[in-house]
């Protein structure tokens, strides 16, 4: 559950960041989501509980 929540949360974060940076093509948004999701996954793995 924790990993799932962090992947989605991280992906959402990456998506919003890409939009804020003015990157609007589908490819760029997907890359932003993927980068954020990877961050979320790495973070979740290091968390307890």
């Amino acid at each position: 559950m924790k990993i799932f929540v962090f992947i989605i949360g991280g992906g959402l974060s990456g998506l919003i960041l890409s939009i804020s940076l003015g990157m609007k093509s589908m490819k760029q948004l997907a890359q932003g989501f993927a980068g954020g999701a990877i961050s979320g996954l790495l973070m979740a793995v290091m968390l307890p509980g």
Partner: protein
Amino acid sequence: MTAFLSSSVGYVTLSIFIITVILALFRKINLPIQTILVLVTLVMLVIGVLERLLTGGMQSVLLLPNEVLGGIIVHPITALLAGLYLAGALEATGGFEAIKAILLRLNRSPLGLPGTLAILVNLPLLAQLPCGRILAAALLPLLFSFGAYGMRILGRDQIIVLVAAFARNAFGSCGPSPIGGVGQSGEGVLGAFFPSASNGILRAPESLALMIGTSLMALFIATITPLLYPQGSSLHDPKTASLAEAAAPEIRPPLTGYISLLIFVAALLVSLFQPLGKMPVQSVLVVAGLLMLLLIAVKRGFLKATEALMGGIILLPASAMVAGFMAAGALAATGGFDALGTIMKGLSGFDLLGVAGMLAIFVQLQTIIPLACSRILVAALVPVLYLFGPARFNLLTWGQLAVVMAAYIINATASCAPSPVGGAGMMAEGTVRAETGYLKAGFSFVSMAVMAPIAAFTMKLMTLYSFSSGEMGMHSPGRLLLSLGLAVVVAVGVMKGIRWMAARGPGLAWNANFTGFLAAGVLAGGSLAFAVFGLETLSLVQGGVGGAVAACLIALMTPRTLVA
């Protein structure tokens, strides 16, 4: 007479503490905050000595230093020092250069620029260092080099947004750090009821809130800040720039950089998962630091190695923490915490505020009074929050206390960024060639409106359940993701509202921003009340009122114009 003296001296010392901190905030006292706190501690001690001489005699006076020093919790200080020592070693061995080189390689991977930047802004959170300034000092120049004066990959506005998002992440990352992080103070208090709280009960709520807060900081800086301060940054786009001309800077980290990065990651993993059995985090970090020291010593000799290593250590957070603990100890010994607890409890007696409204103000206190390091006030305020629980005033159950603690700690942790007294945000403002205060509104907005509510919901709907063996909270990923989505939608809606209002006429940007803060404060206070008390109409209204009061105070401190 003696009873009156004993009960009132706490109010006197508390007033001295608060007034001095506010005067320092408005630069009416031009001394380092640590010096101010030590002086305040001495004044409070003198008052405490006089009161005890009159009420308890010499025997009572002799116990005073013991009570003050007994309030200093050594574990977070030594963990922080060990973490800073390790970061210093990483810097000296070229570890940060290795991070930069890896990032530049990622840029050429399928993740592309957007994916790399999404990882880059979350790097401080992933690195889990005890002070965000460490990584910020190392990586802000790299972020700047993405722009006109380096690789020319990003334009002026993109650089500003990227630096701001990175700063938000860095200057909140000290909260969930397991190696001397700010959150450990709150975890220590919650450990009175949750046996495994010290394993990191606050880390997941803080981390998730910070990830989302990072991206919404980017959105705020991209959409609202240019309206508030159109001429706020002197950064320029290149006059003639083409991607063909752009050349990535050659970063060739030494082999020791990669090795020390591996040692650092290994130390972090050993500290987190304890695969070698239970051992103090400080021991792991010191051993890792010594290994790195050996690496440099082979190349440069022992003396040069030690010098390089010490050069990377930043003393501000450690000294801030010690000064904060000293002031907190003096406040505790003279009854200052009891007085603050009584005042806040008294506030909760007003029908308009109630407990929910008082808590909505309390969790935002450090964004209202942002200091150079959040540890200063955390040391003073966490014990007060503890008093609201079953241990003293019984306003909250242990589960509710954990939810409020999650919201309070992430808000407090992030408060060093908008601080005008040596705040960490100034590093980012300097990087984007902006005046002090340029990023303050964004830092404050996401702390108040986004991060505190998300941390509260994460604690209630995910973390509390696992740390209480299923006896408290809920196990509901669907509801958590829904609340996460709602927090984002509300924040985006408020930002759109600010833009709409600001477009009504010239000079309306600050008023629009104030109104947006107010609306976001009401919703943040209401959602905190919902997370703590559930769907009770009175609590929701009271939470909204408390949130509005806090938001007013925060928004009023947003500069109208930026002065050089």
